[in-house]
């Protein structure tokens, strides 16, 4: 039995169709991340699961029970909000104990559950403080503590790290993931940050304009994007996309881009003359300085050092492409270099539909 099942879900706000026919199965103990740009409907979907938004059509099942008409408090879920939504006038202890007090739990039970959650989250010293006396990371932990004491089977996170600085975000990513493993709960996590999605998820649901573009593991999404949207959204720096058409060279298909013959994946489909978009991840753009005439000429327009790697921005046949290089090879702006691609590393999409033309997994 799935922990959360979403079937043919739709949400309309007057004439605006926010969620369009979405169906997803989320397994018990799975960490699923809903990711997409602003306005794609990911938060709306999460709020529908939580019971904070009504369902226009379709069904949401939580632990085998259809919950469309069930109020949020009875859905056996816990939710962590982007701005934490802590009660500012209550202490950390009271924030965490609030749901238990409403359930009229005995005082000893409340005390025990809150202190257990506080121990998990290293909040024991802060129980008597008010939220205004806490740092962003501590507030985030209290919000999670509030969710933990509810002893829910499904945890919902709505962009919980957006208000934290970059360093703390990385730390909290690890903590949330560890917490998920420790509690053994099912987690649905919303973010617009694809790095957060890639590093935390068992499976990622990529959304755009109210529809699911692709569902898969981080590796699947990165290595085999189903369409141009996923290809460009997942990965940083983004995939290089070059528009050309399918041609035949020496009996094998390739992509004709401004007269350059670029390799195709062996499993790519498509008729000669079909308008296609060639895709290559920055780490799959190979930069050479040996002057080999068999390769494609390009000019370096910018070099950025990111630590162990360097990002090289190149002008290639009038287009800008980005290469990522591991070694600190001496490269300079304005330098003429050669680039090459390997057939088993590149992607191919139908420009008209945006769908991938690579038919089988590599």
């Amino acid at each position, binding site marked *: 039995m799935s922990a959360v099942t979403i079937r043919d879900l739709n949400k309309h706000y007057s004439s605006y169709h926010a969620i369009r026919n979405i169906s997803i199965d989320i397994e018990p103990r799975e960490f699923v991340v809903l990711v997409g740009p602003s306005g794609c409907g990911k938060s709306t979907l999460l709020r529908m699961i*939580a*019971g*904070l938004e009504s369902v226009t059509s379709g069904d949401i099942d939580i632990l085998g029970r259809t919950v469309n008409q069930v*109020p*949020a*408090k009875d859905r056996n*879920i*816990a*939710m962590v*909000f*982007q*701005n934490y*939504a*802590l*009660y*500012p*006038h*209550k202490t950390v202890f009271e924030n965490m104990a*609030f*749901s238990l007090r*409403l*359930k009229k739990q005995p005082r000893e039970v409340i005390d025990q559950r809150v202190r257990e959650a506080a121990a998990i989250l290293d909040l024991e010293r802060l129980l008597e403080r008010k939220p205004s006396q806490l740092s962003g990371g501590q507030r985030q932990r209290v919000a999670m503590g*509030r969710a933990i004491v*509810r002893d829910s089977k499904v945890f919902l996170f709505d962009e919980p790290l957006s208000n934290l600085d970059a360093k703390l975000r990385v730390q909290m990513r690890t903590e949330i993931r560890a917490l998920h493993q420790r509690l053994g709960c099912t987690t649905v996590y919303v973010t617009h940050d694809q790095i957060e999605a890639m590093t935390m998820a068992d499976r990622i649901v990529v959304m755009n304009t109210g529809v699911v573009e692709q569902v898969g593991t981080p590796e699947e999404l990165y290595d085999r994007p189903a369409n141009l949207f996923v290809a460009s959204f997942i990965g940083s720096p983004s995939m290089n996309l070059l528009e050309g058409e399918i041609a035949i060279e020496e009996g094998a298909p390739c992509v004709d881009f401004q007269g350059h013959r670029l390799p195709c994946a062996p499993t790519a489909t498509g008729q000669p003359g079909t308008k296609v978009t060639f895709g290559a991840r920055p780490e799959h753009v190979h930069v050479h300085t040996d002057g080999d005439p068999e390769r494609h000429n390009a000019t370096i327009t910018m070099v950025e050092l990111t630590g162990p790697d360097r990002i090289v921005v190149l002008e290639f046949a009038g287009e800008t492409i980005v290469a990522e290089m591991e070694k600190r090879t001496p490269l300079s702006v304005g330098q003429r270099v050669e680039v090459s691609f390997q057939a088993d590393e590149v992607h191919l999409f139908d420009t008209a539909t945006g769908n991938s033309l690579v038919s089988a997994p590599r």
Partner: protein
Amino acid sequence: MIGERWTAYWFVLPGTFLLLAILGFPAIASIVDSFGSVGSGGFGSAYLALLSDQRFLTASFNTALFVVCVVTLHIILGLAVALLLNADIPFKWFFRVVALLPWTVPDVIGGLIFRFMLDPLSGGVNAIAFRLQLMQGPYDWLGDPGWAMFSVIMAETWRGYPYPMLILLAGLQAIPKEQYEAAAIDGAGRWAIFTNVTLPNLMPMVLIAVVLDAIWQCRLFGMIFGMTNGGPGDATQNLSLFVYRQYFQFFETTYAASAAVVLAAVLLAVAIPYIRSTLREKS
């Protein structure tokens, strides 16, 4: 930088001068005058006379009763209307305008309107009560000391509630929606949400509304002047009316000044918590 600072002082100077001329001079003159002698008494005798003046004590009691009742009713009514106007209802803007209308009525006019409505012979209140067979004959509401104070309190409750209502509505709108949602997920019903989310978040605004309204009601003049002129007898006379009468009917300027200084001191005492809280927020 120093030059810029002095430039700023030059801009502030005309306003400061005007304030000193219009408010500062009369205030200082009144304070100085208030310590003058009354009758055969010496320095500060006016203040001693106030303590034994039954009319002053009655006016002080009336002021306290009026302020406590009106401010309490303003907060209750203002909060109730603010909660209704904060709800997601159609034509919200229309109801907001309607709810604000009483505030647009000048207080003297408001007093006169209620005086006409409560007139024993031609007033609407008696006519309706008679039609509904609640009374056998006309009743002089404003001629009865108990009903007169009650009527004045009701009239000012109606006229003045939009001001605290606006403050509380602004406070309600500033409460993050997520707190309500978190409470709903935590299992809170409507009453629990009201007591655990709405009220605690609103308390700073309630304090501001109470203090500002209390200051306003302490010095209310027009409504009572227009409605009862402090009568019957001294039944609805508050400190503002007492000061007015001493000055402009009995020409007891020193005595009136001392009463005005007492009123000002009371207002200052009420204002201090508000000023302190705003200064704390700024720091």
